[in-house]
């Protein structure tokens, strides 16, 4: 499996931290009001973060 | 104090600035017996975003209940500063959160910066009292109501268990505010 590229659309992110908490691999972290991709290498592209983000603010791309 | 003094508190929804305005208005009108009117913005949808609370204080009855030209303005976030740091009187006062407002609004007024959120979190110990820190600072800087009246108004508003915390927040804000003027 190719690795992932995680794109955060900062303009849209409202910092709800849903993606952070539901990521099974602990890839994401909160940085005050914004999400931060902390460990992209751990991503298994399960899409949970993208599916659950209410704000169209995170996208999981093939690297 | 002039006949009519107008203060605007602004910041992010949930930061308690409405409450700050209410406390100030209570200090002025209930404790000091002046006239005071507090009002606040209701966004088109009341969802998140920036919010503001305005207080008008006067020795005489207040007819027009909305701000005309504010004497003092507080902005806790950049969005609030962009949206609400306007209509400030020439020579008036603008207080900004030093950490959260980067771009400083320009105008013929004096700008002050205080790391309000940081003070609340670090010095007082709870971010949630940032609004009371801010209130303290504003009272310290403007003297629109007395320190005692404001403190009493704060304490009336909070449950017993939180009185000490809020007292500390108010007084720290008051001192820091006063210092800014020096």
């Amino acid at each position: 499996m190719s690795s992932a590229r995680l794109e955060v659309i900062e303009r849209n992110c409202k910092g709800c931290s849903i993606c952070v908490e539901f990521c099974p691999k602990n890839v994401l972290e909160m940085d005050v009001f914004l999400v931060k991709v902390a460990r992209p290498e751990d991503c298994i592209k399960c899409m949970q973060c993208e599916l659950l983000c209410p704000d169209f603010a995170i996208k999981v791309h093939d690297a | 104090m002039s006949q009519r003094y107008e203060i605007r508190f602004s910041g992010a929804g949930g930061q308690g600035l409405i409450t700050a305005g209410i406390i100030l208005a209570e200090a002025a009108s209930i404790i000091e017996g002046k006239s005071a009117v507090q009002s606040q913005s209701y966004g088109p949808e009341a969802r998140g975003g920036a919010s503001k609370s305005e207080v008008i204080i006067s020795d005489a009855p207040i007819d027009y209940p909305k701000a005309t030209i504010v004497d003092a303005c507080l902005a806790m976030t950049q969005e609030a500063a962009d949206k609400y740091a306007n209509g400030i009187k020439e020579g008036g006062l603008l207080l900004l959160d030093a950490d959260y407002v980067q771009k400083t609004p320009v105008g013929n007024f004096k700008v002050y910066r205080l790391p309000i959120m940081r003070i609340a979190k670090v010095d007082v110990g709870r971010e949630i009292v940032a609004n009371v820190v801010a209130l303290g600072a504003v009272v310290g800087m403007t003297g629109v109501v007395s320190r005692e009246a404001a403190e009493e108004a704060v304490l009336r508003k909070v449950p017993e268990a939180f009185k000490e915390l809020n007292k500390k927040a108010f007084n720290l804000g008051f001192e820091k505010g006063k210092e800014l003027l020096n």
Partner: protein
Amino acid sequence: MAYDYDKSIRPGKLPHIWCPGCGHGIVMKGLIRAMDTCGLDRKNTAIVSGIGCASRLPGYLDACTLHTAHGRAAAFATGVKMAKPEMTVICCGGDGDGTAIGGNHFIHACRRNIDMTYVIMNNFIYGMTGGQFSPCTPTGAKASTTPYGNPDPVFDISKLAIGAGATFVARTTAAHPREIDKLITMGIKHKGMAIIEVLDDCPTTYGRRNKFRSVVDMMKHLKANAVPAVAASKLTAEQLQGKFLTGILFQEERPEYCAQYAEVIKKAQA
């Protein structure tokens, strides 16, 4: 990989107005995916809502969108569909909009079995007006107008829809995003009135008052308490306490309303 929502969203409309963590955004994404799956031509798709946070949804979608008055979505939509049956009509809105003030239009659309898909976002509260209880607020819960705990019993929306005659009734939650689009897709394909109830969250007006520490808590609650209807039969009543069944809850074939009216026209023209 990354889903292309952008082609469905009207340019410049994001970020949307919903609060951080509001489940309505998750539902909107599911709806977009379902519309794509069904290959809907947006020019011939009407999305109709009432008033409320949830009802703000249509404004974001690039289609024929109609933001009506509080509670009236189904009635407006019935007019659209009857007048132009070739259009795909999707209703959406909140629990308050759909089952409080809009309850009558809701049940009558179900009765008529008119070909529409109604996505009802049930966040257990009137979000937009600041958290008054809705007919779906759990009994005992706190809301701004139930300071002593809510005395009102709740509607089971799906049960109500079935009682009223809807022919496709399904339920899922915002914590089950893939099921959202799966069920909406089935609803759109179903010929008749399809109700898709999505349990979601309002952290701003419901969560805080009801001891959810965060929106994540609320999402976890939704995730933990969903029981697929197919699995429910194996559980005892006790085990089902406080759970909500998800998946397709009811499905039947009945003549669709516009088709029935086409028969009227045929007779009139004979």
